């Protein structure tokens, strides 16, 4: 009897003990997991902040180095001046030839890449059978990872001679050649963003059109394309951003002569595509390597870098806005 009572007590105690240990372990564990949570959260915040801080530092550095030139020469001279002789005795700091060349080469590239890219995206998203789609997509993605120097080399040895022959020029390194090779570089961006936009149009819209008697082409033209339009525009903008910031290919393909890339025609500037041009990016690459540190010329190059940054920033912001609108329009808020 007593042994039984004893046993009960010890059993009760055992349970009590067990509970106590479990509770302690739980407190320890929850303490530990709280610490881990805290540390990890801080770590992620830190890495996120570092990216932003670095970006801010780059901007700060750009502006700091650019300020002396802006003070001395004035922003208007940079934006509208047509003479760029930074180290001459009669110096000129007009970056307009570079700005126009950059815009021209990029616009030319988009003229080729937009129709090509949008039609390819329509083909992939709407028409191609699954097998074809699954081969085409990786091929196009491969295009995006080509080193730009390889494409520049192709422009140099293949496209430029063809351009020279077709247009009967002594030298094929000009804005046109650069546009052609840049269009190839902008293509993957345009295709993949445009295809995403087309894919985001719900099946139900297409079914509704088919049920009203629309053919496949009528459905694409009247339903899918209009619904995907902001996304397609975003693709174009990002393609523009990709092309305008590209350096090596343009450097190798465009000839790099500093000159206004236009001919005057009854007081209107017309772009001159068969002329050797130098883009903002190419100029920084060419002159940046041997410019005396801290000189006015050095500072002036930073001003052109800021101009480039502002252009790409605006373009990317617009693309972001358009993509957000596309998602909203399709109800994926």
């Amino acid at each position, binding site marked *: 009897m007593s042994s039984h009572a004893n046993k009960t007590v010890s059993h009760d105690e055992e349970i009590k003990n067990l509970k106590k240990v479990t509770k302690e372990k739980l407190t320890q564990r929850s303490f530990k997991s709280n610490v881990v949570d805290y540390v990890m959260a801080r770590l992620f915040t830190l890495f996120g902040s570092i990216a932003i801080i670095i970006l801010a530092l780059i901007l700060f550095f750009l502006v700091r180095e650019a300020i002396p030139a802006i003070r001395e020469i004035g922003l208007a001279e940079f934006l509208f001046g047509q003479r760029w002789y930074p180290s001459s005795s009669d110096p000129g700091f007009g970056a307009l030839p570079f700005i126009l060349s950059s815009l021209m080469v990029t616009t030319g590239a988009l003229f080729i890449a937009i129709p090509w890219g949008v039609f390819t995206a329509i083909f992939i998203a709407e028409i191609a059978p699954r097998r074809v789609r699954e081969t085409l997509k990786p091929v196009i993605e491969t295009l995006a990872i080509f080193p730009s120097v390889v494409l520049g080399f192709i422009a140099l040895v293949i496209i430029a001679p063809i351009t020279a022959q077709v247009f009967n020029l002594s030298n094929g390194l000009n804005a046109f050649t650069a546009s052609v090779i840049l269009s190839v570089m902008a293509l993957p961006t345009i295709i993949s963003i445009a295809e995403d936009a087309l894919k985001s149009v719900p099946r*139900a819209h297409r079914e509704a*059109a088919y*049920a009203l008697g*629309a053919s496949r082409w009528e459905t694409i033209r009247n339903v899918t394309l209009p619904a995907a339009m902001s996304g397609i525009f975003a693709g174009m903008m990002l393609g523009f951003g990709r092309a305008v910031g590209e350096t090596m290919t343009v450097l190798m393909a465009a000839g790099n002569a500093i000159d206004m890339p236009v001919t005057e025609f009854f007081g209107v500037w017309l772009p001159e595509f068969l002329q050797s041009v130098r883009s903002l990016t190419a100029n920084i690459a060419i002159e940046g390597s041997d410019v005396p540190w801290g000189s006015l010329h050095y500072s002036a190059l930073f001003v052109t870098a800021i101009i480039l940054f502002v252009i790409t920033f605006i373009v990317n912001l617009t693309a972001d806005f358009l993509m957000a609108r596309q998602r909203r329009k399709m*109800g994926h808020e």
Partner: protein
Amino acid sequence: MSIKAQEVQTKQPVNSNQTLNDKSRPIFDVQDLNLWYGHDQALKNITFQIPEHGVTAIIGPSGCGKSTFLKSLNRMVELVPTVKTTGKVMYHNTDIFSHEMNLVELRSAVGMVFQKPNPFPKSIFDNVAFGARMHGIKNKKKLRELVEKSLREAALWDEVKERLHESALGLSGGQQQRLCIARCLAVEPEVILMDEPTSALDPSSTLKLENLIHDLKKQYSLIIVTHNMQQAHRISDKTAFFLNGEVIEFDLTTQMFTRPADHRTDDYINGRFG
């Protein structure tokens, strides 16, 4: 083989005579329709005649082939690439699967309303005018008249007449579904197929839509797939009961819901399976 074919041939005229005696001409004469998705047979030897005007309900448990059947009537089912069909569906003396049938004409004459309202991300006006514009009507006055007429028929005009040029996506679910009906009416169809048109709607929108269906049946032939048996009972004149890809029973709705001929129909209607 040949004997069997003869049997079918001799059977056919008897059937059509019967319909002539019935006085109401069938809008669809479905003859021995079989359908496969790849190797899975979804419809088996479907043979029945859908009457002109009025509401024909198609009921049955999920996966019984009722939606597939509905989508084969305007050949929307062919959007699935692996679909194969045999048999005939006669519509005005033309087999809809034959080469003489123009797909655009078929789908303009046989409109469709889907389970989930699917207006285009365009204005209310542009949604209704979509089909007409596509079929070449450019005259603005004509389009306006057509849009108003279709919206009135779909019992939506009074709710949207002040905001025709606002986005259709701003309408409520029930309004969107009536807009889809108006869009379908604007191409002046003869038949309207509805695939569970109220399953995404709240009760009061459902009631409105059922009243609309009641009004529309005077002028159009409506074929409605529903999983809601009370609804089939309320709105339809004739009902077809599908099970495992076959038509088990096809009869007047009142007859079927009071004295079903087949015990499986009885079991389904009374909720013993499904």
